Structures are given as structure tokens and as C-alpha cells.
């Protein structure tokens, strides 16, 4: 009997298909970062991916090599708009390592506090924007409202919300204002409330979980081979955190936990970030208590190489006037040599490798950007996945253009 062609046969038949190249970016509404993806698609399945970075390259290192050691600090602000202070800390600690400076205790507590507020702002943006890019506006507003509260604190502490420029080599710009601890505790309570609201709407939301669970997986071994650090590595189950493993500032003296995930998918990354925000709040509270216990004290190191004289003396004494003049026009001389200092930024290991030839101008300032390194294995996370999985994966890599492209 002759075979009768049915509709089922037509559906089973192999259709002639071709791979399609899709250009996404460099400016795309669903990615918070200026980056271009060239995606090879088979239907909606990602076959391969090429990433073009560099759109925000503005010669960070070259600029650093042409100013004084001080003049590089505002540039570090602009590496990561979410957590400028963490970049300030990374740079200043590297230069201080070369100068063999030990900063006063009060300064270290202030830096720890400011750094954790920065990390909080960064994670709030990442989690909030991830919801926005997955078409959920409300949780984004919770996140951004909490970030506003964090930036209010920043403004009170540094005078600026985003590009804080708070650190100095050997200290900080100034102590916190007297009203700061009170406002800070109030805002922490409000942020905790917002995080609770956020958690209720998002964490067990079926739509959100379906988009995140099992997508963008990167195994522990691949993380290590690609030198991936930060929440992505911790989500894969490796408890590496520079704050714990090589404690700097006051991290050895505060209590906090390092959350880790199990499978290393986007959902684990999300859970790690949410828990890290709670831990950051815990650290901020401990810093406040320690600062109150310490009472007033110096926030800048008393070392003639980097110290700026008191303003009152500058206008009335010749020695201090000359010192001020030299500090402004020439800046500190850093002894010849090289140093690498790593800190745990919101995205992972942020390292600064500084080389000095003994003059007042850096010979080299290398920033080891976690965004750049963490973005590289993205094709590995996405080969064989659906095009839609690209969005949450890119969100939780949290590539920041300023830092990635420098």
C-alpha cells in the first residue's frame, strides 16, 4: 500500500536551515554595558559567540603614566560607576604597599565601611537591573531605591554620590561627619526593608527562577582555568574571597560569611549576591561600632612623603607653604620597584600592579579588571543555550564597561 503523506511526516522532515549571524549591541536596551556580541544562531540556539569589547577604552593606563601618583585616583573612580571606592582602595593600597605605609586605624575602618557601601550599591544595581532586563520593573525600583539610600550615605561621607574620589594615598579625604552613624543606621534599616520586599517579589518568582535556574552554567574547573573570580566563582562552589584569604584593611577583625553556590548557574549567582548584600550590611554596622569606640583620631598617615600640611599652617608658615606647593605641583616620590595588590571588588579580584622608577610619575599602573576576565568565558556559558539566556547570563557577569575597557 502506498504511503499516504500526512501532516506528521511534513513536521518530521528535515528542513533546510542556515546559521544566522546576529549582531547585538554595542548599545542594546537589554544589556547594561557597551559591548557587542556577534552571535551565530541556529534558530534560537546559540552556536557560537564572539564578544567585541573596547568601546569605552579611554587610555586609563596611558593617562596614569602622565600625571602624578595622586592624579590617578579620580581615574580609578571612573573604572566602575557602581563601586568607585573599591577601585580607589585597590589603587591606594597598591601605592601604599610600594611606599611601605601603614595607615591609621580610623582610616582603615572608614575605608572598610566605604568599600562595603560600594559593594552594596554594586550588587543592588546588578540584581535590580537583572530584573529590569528580564521585563520586571518593580523589583528594579526596589533595588534602585535602596541604592539611592546607599548613595545618600556616600554623599554624606565623600561629598559626591558616584565618583566619590574619597581616598588619598595614606588616608582618606576627611573623617565622617558627626551625624553619619545615625543616618547610616536609619538607612540600613530601610535598605533591609527594601531587600525584604525585593526578596518576596523575586527570589521564588516562577518567571524569574525559570529564566535563571540552569542557565549560564560555568563549572568550577572552567572558572579556575579562566581565572574567573568573585560571585561567579563562588556560585560554582569555590569559597575564594580576597577579604578572607588575604585580609587587608580591617577584614580580619570583622565577622562575615562567604556565601557559596553549588551548580554555578545564574540562580546561584543571584543567591550569592543577595546574601553578600546582607553580609555587607553586617560589616558596615561593625565598622560604625568600631569607629564610635575609637573616637576622634587622625585619618591620614603622618608621613612627610605623602602628608599634606594643615591649612592653617600653610597660610602662616614658610615651611608648610613650600611643602603644600611641592605636594600639589610635584606629588609624592615613590621609591623604585613594583608591587601588586589585590582586593575583593564586587565583581571579583581587582588587582593593581604598579611600577615606579623613583620619580613622582607612575611608570606603570596596571588594573587587573575582574569584568574583563569574567566576560571572556561567556561563550562557554552560552554555547547550546537559547538566545534569551544571554540576557540573564550577561546580567550576572555584571560586566562594567568602564572597568572592562579602561
Amino acid at each position, binding site marked *: 500500500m502506498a504511503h499516504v503523506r500526512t501532516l506528521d511526516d511534513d513536521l518530521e522532515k528535515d528542513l533546510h536551515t542556515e546559521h544566522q549571524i546576529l549582531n547585538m549591541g554595542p548599545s542594546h536596551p537589554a544589556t547594561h554595558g557597551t559591548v557587542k556580541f556577534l552571535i551565530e544562531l541556529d534558530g534560537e540556539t546559540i552556536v557560537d559567540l564572539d564578544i567585541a569589547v573596547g568601546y569605552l577604552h579611554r587610555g586609563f593606563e596611558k593617562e596614569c603614566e602622565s600625571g602624578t601618583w595622586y592624579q590617578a585616583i579620580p581615574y580609578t573612580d571612573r573604572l566602575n560607576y557602581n563601586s568607585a571606592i573599591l577601585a580607589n582602595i585597590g589603587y591606594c593600597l597598591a601605592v601604599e604597599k610600594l611606599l611601605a605605609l601603614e595607615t591609621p586605624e580610623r582610616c582603615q575602618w572608614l575605608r572598610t565601611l566605604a568599600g562595603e557601601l560600594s559593594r552594596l550599591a554594586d550588587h543592588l544595581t546588578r540584581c535590580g537591573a537583572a530584573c529590569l532586563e528580564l521585563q520586571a520593573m518593580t523589583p528594579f525600583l526596589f533595588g534602585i531605591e535602596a541604592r539611592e539610600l546607599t548613595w545618600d550615605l556616600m554623599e554624606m561621607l565623600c561629598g559626591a554620590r558616584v565618583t566619590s574620589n574619597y581616598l588619598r594615598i595614606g588616608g582618606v579625604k576627611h573623617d565622617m561627619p558627626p551625624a553619619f552613624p545615625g543616618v547610616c543606621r536609619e538607612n540600613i534599616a530601610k535598605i533591609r526593608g527594601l531587600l525584604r520586599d525585593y526578596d518576596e517579589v523575586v527570589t521564588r518568582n516562577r518567571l524569574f527562577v525559570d529564566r535563571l535556574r540552569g542557565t549560564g552554567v560555568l563549572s568550577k574547573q572552567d572558572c579556575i582555568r579562566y581565572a574567573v573570580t568573585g560571585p561567579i566563582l563562588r556560585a560554582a562552589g569555590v569559597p*575564594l574571597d580576597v577579604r578572607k584569604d588575604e585580609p587587608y584593611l580591617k577584614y580580619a577583625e570583622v565577622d562575615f560569611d562567604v556565601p557559596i553556590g553549588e551548580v554555578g548557574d545564574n540562580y546561584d549567582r543571584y543567591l550569592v549576591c543577595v546574601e553578600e548584600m546582607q553580609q555587607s550590611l553586617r560589616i558596615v554596622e561593625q565598622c560604625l561600632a568600631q569607629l564610635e569606640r575609637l573616637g576622634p583620631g587622625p585619618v591620614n598617615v603622618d608621613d612627610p612623603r605623602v602628608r599634606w600640611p594643615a591649612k592653617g599652617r600653610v597660610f602662616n608658615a614658610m615651611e608648610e607653604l613650600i611643602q603644600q606647593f611641592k605636594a600639589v605641583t610635584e606629588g609624592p616620590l615613590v621609591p623604585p620597584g613594583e608591587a601588586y595588590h589585590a582586593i575583593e571588588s564586587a565583581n571579583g579580584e581587582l588587582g593593581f600592579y604598579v611600577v615606579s622608577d623613583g620619580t613622582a610619575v607612575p611608570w606603570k599602573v596596571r588594573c587587573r579588571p575582574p569584568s574583563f576576565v569574567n566576560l*571572556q568565558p561567556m561563550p562557554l556559558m552560552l554555547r547550546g543555550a537559547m538566545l534569551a539566556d544571554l540576557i540573564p547570563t550577561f546580567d550576572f557577569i555584571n560586566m562594567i564597561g568602564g572597568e572592562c575597557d579602561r
Partner: protein
Amino acid sequence: MEDFGSPALRRLLEAFPGAVLATHAQCGDATALVDAGRVVEILRFLRDERGLEFEMLMDLTAVDHLGRAPRFEVVYHLYSLSRNQRVRVKAGVPESPCQIDSAVALWPAADWMEREVWDLYGIRFRNHPDLRRILLYEEFEGHPLRKDYPKERRQPLVGPGN
């Protein structure tokens, strides 16, 4: 040569007596300057040798020491996850031929980092699978982090060819 109490430097000096040219531990960072011709072999030793296990290539960059010979240095920062230790390996690269062996076969992390060094310093990495510019565009002339590239030089902004 001294090992400055660093197990990595001690083992390197034992295993590669001729290839380690200098060591120091300035600011507490254990550093070995090695023969550029054997750098991949040395990095593999540091990664695989029991008791060292530097599994992560945290950073790879270069420094231009204009006026010195060799002119460039390629700098590797390794981290051992299991032992929580760091070591810095440096290898000199002359102005011509301006090349060194690639470490991509050891760590895929080296891929983009080496592309960046090629882009900004013009150091070629032999056996790199895809040595293209990464931060700048293909039409860009020169390598801007070289000390003889003037900061004020301007080039037309054209997008990447692809």
C-alpha cells in the same frame, strides 16, 4: 640566588638553575625573572608541580622599559587556590623580534590578556590561536602603551572592521 622563603622560588631555582635569571621579594611579592625562551615550560611547572599548584593565571601584562635591554617585560601573576600563595614571573622581550611564547595552551585565561598586550604593547605571542586587537580597532596604527607613543597623538575613530 635567594628564594626569600618562598617555596615557589625555591623549587624554581632547584628545577631551572640556568633559566631563573634573578629573584626578589620586594614589598613581599615573590618574583622570578626567567629566560623568555623557557617561560611556558616554567609556567607549566608552577601550575602542575605537586606542592606548588598555581592553578590560576590571575594577570598577564607587560611593561615597557624604554632604553633598557631587553626593552619589554611580560609579567605573569599566578595564584594558587589550594595553597593561597602568589608568585610573579617576568620574562624579558627584546624590541626585535618582539615576541614570546603564548600561555593560552596552559590557561585559556591568557587568550584575552595576551590579545590586550599585543594590542597595547605590540608584543607578539607565538602560537596564540587568535591574536587580534581587543580594546582598539584593527585600523589603529601603533601600540599606545609603548613609551614612545605620544599621549597627544590622535587617530580617526573608526569602528571595528567586523
